[in-house]
């Protein structure tokens, strides 16, 4: 068939034939062929028009005036004759060089004059216009466009039939035709990109047909989310047009006002998201983050990431108006209606999965404004009046993988060096400076000249981890020559007689004092210093774009006293401003379910061809884009009551802190302690009764909440209790506020006493809570926190006054008691439990803290690292928490004779593991933007330990603890240098 011949005829072969043939001969041949073709064409012309230039507008295949043979099927021999001629003609056309001074060559001129292409197209219509025929025509144009030696598309007689062909292919379903169509479109876009002058013609051509349209663009849209080559080609082609739009206002306006490009992209994400697995099958307990090896195995995730990457690319290159619209649609069409609910699914596994996805998405985005969209969703969006951020923070405290996956997410967030993120997570709590004594404010900026803080950190090294105790092979304390004096230093203090000695020896005037020549040092510490140096200097560099120094002067603490700290406005302003930018047309359509559903009727004229979304494979029936952020309807109980209810329910629910009642650190610590102590027992209890998950206080949980698909492990059962999301929503409303308050207080009493009792009983020797002194403090504070008056006047009347401060962070964040924020609270409380944390949790945890410690902002730096800073009594410092852990370790090692041996075994194990990772990791490192810091954790299973089991968390934690101290100390030391090097200008 013609197409195949055409397609196979490669250029080189033909040019051999044509080489040397003079243009005139070619022209004569061409004309002859055409004459033959015309004969056949006219014979079957239904109109038998005398005109030589029939146009499409008068074609009507159904109505004719001619004889029967004009409508009958075309004989095969005639059809193939035409094909043969056309084939030759096309080669001649392709091979023709353009004429002098860039004007048309004679053949092309003839083609244009005679309207050859259009007549051929009509001929193909005249025959049965099958998929095969379309394919033929598409291939013909593909070859012409791709291989012609002179520009063809400038000429309407060529462009018009091409456009007609394209539009006739729009509804096509045959994969072969689609593939060819997209290929041709891609080619056209390439030409457009190279020669934007044709752009006008593409628009005009469409206008001839009564619509402002940009056909090639509209035709590509349905393929945006396709998998495989077709999708990729379509996306590449669209990207070319997107970069055109950056320069061409008209294209930009068209895309924004007359096409569904942006909504299709955004809702496409929603559609693709809905086809992702709702529960991940995680390889092992340590897994906490989707690495490339993980997601490469999940086709649906690969597809989603492709589309996300495409959005990213569009935002990167497109005109600002397109960018704004797309970002707004992603926020309102994907993040809010799809991702937010997904983050609040019912089961632990589902929520964990969503969190891991979110983390992966964040790591995949490179374009700033897209990242901004995601971040503002996390920081400012409220789902059921709770900030996403608060929910995510609170989940760090969940046991099991949700906790670690959440930590991994925060590792990503902190790695962005984003002021807004750090502000919401930590800095906003430090700005008022009420976590420290008033006199201490100047200390914030002070420099640790003599490494006293570092020394104090290192002094916490447990005695069992002292390098002197390590057997030789593990002795990190390698003998390293510290002094730079070389081998010949020691004789420096010898003779002090000659003044003007020019000897090669060290200055012999008696003044020389190199540091002792042979001092044995902890070699690993050098590595920590080096790492610290790298991370701090890149952090400093990154934070140069920040708006303030956060040094207890800028922003001024006085201006932001507790309660005065501004509250972010309801819903990011971005949402609103962005929505404004969305043309009304689209918004109104969006309401009625974009982009599928019934074809938009009124706008059909304007959006001709755009109804080809039918070809879009994505089945999107997601929630329509909302015009406004949801507000509470008046029929619901007042917000504060809802919040209290939530709080209480959570306390009932086994003290999993979902909605962040972080009114102060102590409260959090208590809750965590209770939770920890109750877990073990609880798990045992549940085993006996599979139908119900009883709680300590006698309430039962419906089993529907207990995940059913897990085997029969204790942990799986215990999950029921931590899975409170669902319960929150299912909770029966409480009738009267007063009644409720009573119950609430009762509950707290019960929990409090029980918690304490159980903790003592259930504690293993490891788990001893801190020290007696601190325990007392906690008790006191606990009391205070429930009786303190809220200073705010606008709060409701007394019955609730006492619990106001328990209000979720979503409504108001004012803390009269010094509070360093939920994030710090949660991290510290997990750190305090270091000895019971599994190794991978501790690695993540210390990694995050080290990340935070590298930030140069004096407020944060002094809070975490300055051991001389005097805090308010209720504020716990990192140093205090570390000291607690140290004393736990000392106690433990004193009570266990074999502890040093085990530590050695653990060190061996960790070193072996590290070595195996560095060996395997050489090649494919995951190129995400957050540094894995050379940490030991990866998703692949670790080599099995020989001498020690990972279950001995306390042993591993001890080793890690000692290393963490070095890391922190190194960071502290580097800060004392790097943060004070003057920056030019």
């Amino acid at each position, binding site marked *: 068939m013609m197409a195949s011949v055409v397609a196979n005829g490669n250029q080189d072969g033909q040019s051999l034939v044509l080489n040397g043939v003079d243009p005139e001969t070619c022209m004569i041949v061409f004309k002859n062929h055409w004459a033959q073709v015309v004969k056949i064409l006219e014979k079957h012309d239904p109109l038998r028009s005398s005109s030589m230039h029939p146009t499409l507008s008068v074609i009507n295949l159904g109505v004719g005036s001619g004889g029967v043979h004009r409508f009958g099927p075309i004989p095969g021999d005639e059809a193939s004759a035409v094909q043969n001629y056309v084939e030759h003609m096309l080669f001649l056309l392709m091979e023709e060089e353009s004429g002098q001074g860039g004007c048309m060559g004679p053949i092309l001129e003839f083609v244009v004059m005679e309207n050859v292409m259009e007549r051929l197209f009509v001929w193909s219509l005249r025959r049965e216009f099958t998929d095969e025929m379309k394919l033929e025509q598409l291939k013909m144009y593909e070859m012409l466009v791709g291989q012609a030696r002179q520009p063809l598309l400038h000429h309407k007689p060529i462009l018009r039939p091409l456009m007609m062909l394209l539009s006739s292919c729009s509804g096509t379903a045959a994969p072969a035709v689609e593939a060819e169509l997209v290929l041709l479109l891609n080619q056209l876009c390439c030409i457009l990109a190279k020669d934007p002058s044709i752009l006008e013609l593409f628009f005009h051509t469409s206008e001839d047909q009564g619509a402002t349209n940009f056909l090639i663009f509209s035709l590509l849209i349905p393929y945006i989310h396709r998998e495989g080559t077709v999708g990729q080609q379509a996306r590449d082609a669209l990207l070319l047009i997107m970069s055109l739009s950056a320069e061409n206002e008209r294209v930009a306006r068209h895309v924004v006002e007359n096409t569904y490009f942006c909504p299709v992209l955004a809702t496409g994400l929603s559609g693709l998201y809905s086809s992702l697995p709702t529960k991940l099958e995680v390889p092992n307990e340590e897994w906490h983050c989707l690495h490339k090896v993980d997601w490469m195995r999940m086709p649906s995730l690969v597809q989603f990431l492709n589309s996300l990457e495409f959005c990213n690319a569009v935002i990167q290159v497109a005109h600002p108006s397109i960018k704004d619209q797309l970002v707004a649609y992603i926020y309102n069409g994907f993040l809010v209606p799809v991702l937010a609910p997904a983050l609040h699914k019912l089961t632990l596994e589902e929520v964990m999965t969503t969190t891991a996805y979110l983390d992966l998405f964040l790591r995949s985005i490179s374009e700033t404004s897209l990242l901004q969209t995601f971040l503002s969703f996390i920081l*400012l969006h409220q789902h059921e009046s709770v900030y996403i951020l608060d929910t995510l923070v609170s989940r760090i405290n969940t046991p099991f993988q949700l906790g670690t996956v959440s930590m991994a997410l925060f590792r990503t967030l902190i790695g962005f060096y*984003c002021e807004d993120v750090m502000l919401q997570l930590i800095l906003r709590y430090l700005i008022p400076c009420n976590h420290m004594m008033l006199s201490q404010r100047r200390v914030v900026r002070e420099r640790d000249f003599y*490494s006293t803080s570092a020394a104090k950190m290192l002094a916490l090294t447990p005695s069992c981890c002292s390098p002197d105790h390590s057997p030789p092979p593990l002795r990190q*304390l390698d003998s390293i020559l510290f002094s730079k004096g070389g081998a010949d230093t020691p004789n420096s203090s010898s003779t002090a007689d000659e003044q003007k000695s020019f000897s090669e020896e060290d200055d012999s005037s008696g003044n020389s004092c190199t540091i002792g020549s042979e001092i044995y040092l902890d070699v690993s510490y050098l590595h920590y210093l080096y790492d610290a*140096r790298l991370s701090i200097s890149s952090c400093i*560099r990154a934070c140069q774009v*920040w*708006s303030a120094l956060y040094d207890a002067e800028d922003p001024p603490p006085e201006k932001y006293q507790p309660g005065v700290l501004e509250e972010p406005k309801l819903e990011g302003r971005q949402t609103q401003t962005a929505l404004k930018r969305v043309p009304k047309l689209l918004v109104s359509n969006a309401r009625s379910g974009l982009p599928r559903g019934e074809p938009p009727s009124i706008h059909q004229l304007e959006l001709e061809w755009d109804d080809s979304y039918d070809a879009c494979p994505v089945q999107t029936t997601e929630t329509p884009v909302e015009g406004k952020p949801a507000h509470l309807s008046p029929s619901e109980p007042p917000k504060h009551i809802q919040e209290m209810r939530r709080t209480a329910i959570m306390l009932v629910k086994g003290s999993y802190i979902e909605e962040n009642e972080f009114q102060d650190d102590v409260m959090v610590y208590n809750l965590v302690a209770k939770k920890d102590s109750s877990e073990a027992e609880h798990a045992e209890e549940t085993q006996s009764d599979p139908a119900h998950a009883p709680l300590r206080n006698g309430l039962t949980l419906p089993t529907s909440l207990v995940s059913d698909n897990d085997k029969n492990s204790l942990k799986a059962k215990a999950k029921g209790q931590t899975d409170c999301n669902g319960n929150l929503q299912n909770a029966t409303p409480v009738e009267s506020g007063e009644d409720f308050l009573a119950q609430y207080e009762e509950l707290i009493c019960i929990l409090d006493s029980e918690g304490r009792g159980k903790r003592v009983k259930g504690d293993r020797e490891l788990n001893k809570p801190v020290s007696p002194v601190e325990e007392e403090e906690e008790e006191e504070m606990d009391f205070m926190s429930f009786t303190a008056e809220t200073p705010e006047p606008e709060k409701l009347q007394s019955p609730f006054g006492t619990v106001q401060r328990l209000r979720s962070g979503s409504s108001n964040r004012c803390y009269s008691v010094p509070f360093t924020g939920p994030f710090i609270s949660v991290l510290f409380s997990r750190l305090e439990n270091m000895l019971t944390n599994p190794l991978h949790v501790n690695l993540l945890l210390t990694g995050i803290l080290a990340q935070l410690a590298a930030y140069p902002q004096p407020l944060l730096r002094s809070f975490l690292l300055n051991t001389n800073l005097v805090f308010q009594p209720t504020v716990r410092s990192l140093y205090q928490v570390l000291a607690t852990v140290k004393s736990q370790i000392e106690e433990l090692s004193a009570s266990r004779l074999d502890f040093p041996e085990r530590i050695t075994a653990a060190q061996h194990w960790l070193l072996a593991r590290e070595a195996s990772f560095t060996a395997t990791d050489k090649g494919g490192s995951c190129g995400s933007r957050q540094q894995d810091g050379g940490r030991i954790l990866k998703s692949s299973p670790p080599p099995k330990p020989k001498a020690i089991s990972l279950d001995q968390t306390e042993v591993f934690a001890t080793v890690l603890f000692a290393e963490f101290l070095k890391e922190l100390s190194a960071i502290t030391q580097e800060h004392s240098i790097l943060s004070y090097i003057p920056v030019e200008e």
Partner: protein
Amino acid sequence: EGVTCSLSTARPDEEQGGHADQKTSPARTSHKKHLPPIPKNAVPITKPASVGTPSHLANGTHASYGPFYLEYSLMAEFTLVIKQKLPGIYVQPSYKSALMWFGVIFIRHGLYQDGVFKFTVYIPDNYPDGECPKLVFDTPVFHPLVDPVSGELDVKRAFTKWRRNHNHIWQVLMYARTVFYKINTAEPLNPEAAVLYEKDGQLFKSKVVDGVKLCNSHLFDQPKVDDPFAISFSPWNPAVHDEAKERMFTFKRRPEEHHKGAQVSGLSWVKPGSTQPFSKVDSPQS
């Protein structure tokens, strides 16, 4: 004079007089900031630790970290010197020991005008808890407070007791400079100079001028101490120095350019003066 002061670290420092403020570039620090001072070819010694010098424990609880604390204290001091931008003073810690700093001071006016005095600062190894650092001129300068034999400046009179957190090495350097502009004759280390200054200003002056000349005539001498970071001078050599000078000036003009390669950039949508996230409208970043 056409004299170049060139630090032997292949980063010649420009000094044509008058550009006092431009001289301290951050690039200067880069050599010293790295702790790892382990010479590449240093063979680890396998002798037990106890054989070495007794550890200097003044500073830390763990013996093995003491040197780190000391090193970082000294680096902190050094960054502080840079920050001060002391006019006409350059210092560079020695390669071999952080406790020994090489320096040079340029006197721009007054009695000692045109003097270029090289000196060495010696810091006690129990810093900051020991005595105050010593400052010794390579060539004894004729000055009431400079020992005519050893070249040591009487620093102690200004820092009778070295107090950690209050006293810093830049103050010693600053003092060394002041001494040449405001001459003090009380309790002199060089009584001859003191007496002359009081009694015969003219003679004093001519002796100073001779001293300055003598000193400058030795400018191109090899450094007294064999140390790769010792300060040495060489005549202006366009082949070497022009390019270096050019580089220094371009670096000054566009300090940011230097970091572009690293590609680490933070994010912020916070409006200055606000503590609200995403308060910046239409951030230029995006």
